[in-house]
């Protein structure tokens, strides 16, 4: 499969990543190799084979509707790089 500059641009936009100049060429080479490697799977004829989604046959692993407090607000916020006592803080999303 051909990985083009447009593919890289699209994927980096979705992943919120940036690749410039030399970086872009390198990721293009790497990604091509990865895709070609995985693409070997396409050589197997899978006509009439149902897709396998789950590795086990377990079904209905369900939980009762009970609410439990497991972590405090302080604990919830403490690993965030920027926060106050109530909220996570991130750079402004909406441009005024």
């Amino acid at each position, binding site marked *: 499969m051909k990985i083009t500059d447009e593919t890289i641009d699209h994927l980096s936009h979705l992943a919120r990543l940036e690749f410039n100049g030399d970086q872009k060429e390198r990721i293009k080479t790497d990604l091509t190799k990865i895709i070609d490697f995985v693409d070997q799977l396409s050589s197997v004829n899978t006509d009439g084979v149902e897709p396998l989604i789950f590795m086990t046959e377990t079904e209905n692993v369900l939980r009762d509707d009970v609410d439990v407090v*497991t972590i405090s*607000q302080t604990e919830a916020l403490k690993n965030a790089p*920027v926060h106050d006592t109530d909220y996570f803080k*991130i750079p402004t999303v909406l441009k005024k």
Partner: protein
Amino acid sequence: MAITEEIRAKYKPVIGLEIHAQMLTRSKAYSNDKNEYGSAPNTNVSVITLGHPGTLPRMNRKTIDFAIRMGIACDCKISELQHFARKNYFYPDLPKGYQITQDTTPICTGGSVLIKDENGNEKRVGLTRIHMEEDAGKSIHDIDPFNTLIDLNRAGVPLIEIVSEPDITSSQQAYNYVTEVRKLVRYLDICDGNMEEGSLRCDANISVMLKDAKEFGVKVEVKNMNSMRNVQRAIEYEIERQIEAIEKGEKLVQETRNFNALNGTTTAMRSKEAANDYRYFPEPDLQPIRVTQQHVQKIREAMPPLPNFLHTKYTTELGLSEYDAGVITDQKEIALYFEEIIRYTKNYKAAANWVMGDIKSHLNAKALDITELKLSPNHVAELISLIDSGKLSHSLASQKVFPEMLKADESPLKIAESNNWIQTSDEGEIKKLIAAVIAENPSEIARYRAGETKLMGFIMGQLMKKSAGKADPKSAGKLLTEMLSEN
């Protein structure tokens, strides 16, 4: 905007709605932190909700049952085997980087919602699907000028998304459809239907086409309509905007537009083609769900009565008018209260009148919900039977007895007896009163007997006054006519 009726009539709007309803569960969809509106920010969270590495979701069985309830109510096909999918996108209020939803195997497919069109005729709006998913957190842009604040209490709250077919052809129908869906989820007790708080949200897909066209026009999605009225306003605006653009020869683009409630217009948010690539794939962390026929049957048997069922029952079996049935079934709690009253009385029309009249105006005046009303339905039924049997006049019942009942929720018979309000239909008693009236008003009686029949009203009034409103007017009137025609 200025498009004439004539131009507008050339086009047919094609509208499909997507409604998200937050489920009234105690805990979230895939974790056991609390599902509650209005808690202090970031208190209803867990490591699963926060998307911490190594955490795994666990499915809430109640969400499934609630979705099935809605499916049964809309006559959908309930899927036997299904799995979840990841919808991938990066946004700060989505900690995991993906939303767990259903893609290829929604829990319900097909079915319909019965609505009224703009002419009051019944119309079925088809459903494409109902699927389960989770809500995102909340981004707050207007507290801190330099930062966006994130509250993840809402992240992971269970939702069902109800997707309609593009069967809706006017803003009025869209309004009626959302009203009907809200009524249904409230009857089913699966969502509180509060659009202002966002527990019921609606997005609209709108296009217009020339009436004889074979192909749909370019579809625009409108978001952010946070009330019933705004759904209607946004759709109305969008229909006109699209028609006007087409008439001017402009090319419409497929895009998402935001509704602005302040000026009633929509503005472009993002263009659809480039931005949306969600790369769905099956969610490996949740095992598939199998719903057996027996399970669906169990839920079906425990279903509450639905508004359409009650409406039909009221108009056909109970002989109520369309209007009465509509008012009573509009709110589940009112309907259930009415249902209680009619367990004790067969005078359905009177029961409806009391509910829609005295009881509703009391609730309105006191700004009460009917669930807060301290008035036993059997006492209302008893009041009706007191009137029907002639023991109480309607005006006494309404003006004197009913207010007393609201004070103490006592039996109306007791109240009427202790206040000496019971009407007498005892002939001897009434005859005595009539004789006194005849004796006291000789000239009017003479003129009446001479043919001035319109004086009957006056004489009857004197009689009622004499009895202090307690003579049963029906038997009193009959006796009075008899005694006046004697000699």
